[in-house]
């Protein structure tokens, strides 16, 4: 049986299905029939290919492959990865263990290239992480670029997105939440030195990077800002959160 799981959500142009081929054989199928959608699926295949090279998974075969290709249409298949997922809407405090696992995983595998030359996942959110038999597995590589981002961008984005989904523009982050953000920034910085702006005003840096480099994400930034929840923080909030994180970072230093 087949089930439509997501259909062009948040303004993207990809449909995602769960296919149950009987027994315990399950797979994810993604299709697209527009240039933007097809491009996202090609990135997904490229992303998985890259990820599997640096992080071999239990199965030796490719996780993701193209199954049908036409002039205006692409269909790809991804092996179903069993494991647990967390609800990113529950925020930083309830998810802090999983967040640290992801940050450690990133530090372990992600190569650092000079300037903005590091690989970009482009949508690293807790929603896109599965904790399975092999440990942390990052999924959903539709925005992958083998180079284009400063090292640390993706986990930093995940931290602030998780924070936003909990507090939005309505309440101040708690000291615990700020502590979790700062703690993970320190962890990242201990692995490879982060760009100075990422330490001085991390949220402002993320927002500016996305806006200045929106072509990395195709049209989604201009038309569908809700794809990037952190862009909904008001400028005042961005400054005040940055101040809190920085003073915490200074205290820890």
């Amino acid at each position, binding site marked *: 049986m087949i089930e439509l799981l997501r259909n*062009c959500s948040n303004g993207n142009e990809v449909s995602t299905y769960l296919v149950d081929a009987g027994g315990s054989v399950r797979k994810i199928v993604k299709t697209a029939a527009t240039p933007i959608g097809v491009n996202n699926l090609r990135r997904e295949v490229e992303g998985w290919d890259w990820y599997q090279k640096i992080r071999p998974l239990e199965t030796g075969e490719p996780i993701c492959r193209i199954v*049908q290709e036409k002039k205006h249409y692409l269909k790809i298949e991804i092996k179903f990865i069993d494991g647990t997922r967390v609800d990113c809407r529950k925020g930083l405090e309830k998810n802090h263990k999983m967040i640290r696992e992801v940050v450690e995983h990133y530090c372990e595998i992600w190569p650092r290239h000079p300037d903005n030359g590091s690989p970009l996942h482009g949508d690293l959110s807790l929603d896109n992480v599965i904790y399975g038999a092999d440990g942390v597995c990052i999924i959903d590589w539709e925005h992958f670029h083998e180079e284009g981002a400063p090292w640390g961008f993706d986990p930093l984005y995940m931290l602030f997105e998780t924070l936003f989904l909990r507090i939005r523009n309505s309440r101040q982050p708690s000291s615990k939440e700020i502590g979790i953000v700062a703690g993970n920034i320190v962890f990242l910085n201990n692995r490879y030195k982060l760009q100075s702006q990422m330490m001085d005003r991390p949220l402002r840096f993320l927002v500016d990077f996305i806006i200045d480099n929106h072509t990395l994400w195709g049209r989604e930034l201009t038309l569908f800002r809700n794809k990037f929840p952190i862009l909904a923080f008001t400028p005042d909030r961005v400054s005040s959160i940055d101040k809190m994180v920085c003073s915490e970072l200074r205290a820890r230093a």
Partner: protein
Amino acid sequence: MIRDELNNLYQNASGHIYFTGSEGYWSNLDKKENQELIQALQHMDTKEAIKKYQAWLFDMIFSPKRSGGLELLDLSGDESCIDYGCMWGALTVALAKRCKHVLGVDQTMDSLKLLNARLKDEGLENVDLLCGNLKEIGYFENKFDIAVINGVLEWIPENGPIELKKYYGKYNVKKYTSSPRGQQVSFLEKVHRNLNDKGKLYLAIENRYDFKMFLGIKDPHANLLFTSFLPRKAADWLSGLILGRPYVNWLYSFNDIKSLLKQAGFSGADLYMCFPDYRFPERIMPYGSSLNGFRTSISLRNSKGQVTIKRRLGIIAEYAAFKILKAKYFAPSIVAIAYK
């Protein structure tokens, strides 16, 4: 080849359009609006024309979301398809990108002209269009691998020209000679005959018992409250009272759809629940599934981007009906994949 058969049987009107000789009219737009659109196509492409003159229809025509259900057909890419009541081609174009050939059939020449221009914009050569009444076109015995009936079956019992905006009022009182169900079954019999032995039908339609209809959302066809689920005679009476005509846009429950398809000769059908509706599906789940992992599908914002109380209540009702009560019978829309 379908194209050879079309050339033998029908006159070529223009481009990929063939004409049976009998044109009808069913459109969300009135004739003047359609004329304006067709004229605009002489100096702009279809997307620009729709944006300029009928922007509210843009997603209805062009959104890739419209075709999210087609993958249930498990297409190989080599199929010959027929799209009954194709209109502006939301699914015709989607099929053409996935399959070998598509024949789109519709009674409204204006819609087909727009679709023809759109096919040119998209560079799709594997589509032919036939203008004619779905109930009257000749047979294409065993010719198709795939048939699509998307939001069309409930209109089969209607006859004569329909401008949808006026249809919601008391106009155009016509004679209805046979039962809606009888007409729907004979149409499905024709669809069945036109499929080859391995052929499959994709049928999408609102559920007669869609939970929203009980909460004061009007039937999307007659624009009346409660008509879809009332006993047919009561619906006739209500429609007669307000619109001066019987209620003919019959919808069905999951079980009824299965028996309708069986009656038309189909050997079997897989049923799916579709949320929030079959036109812009967010989630499609097998009718047999347990609704585990159900997420509400109604969008918090309306088409103007406003958060309304009605929407909030809709989301709460949807959550209660499907997440808590698992009331599958009341799912908003039905998709059936039927086998010859």
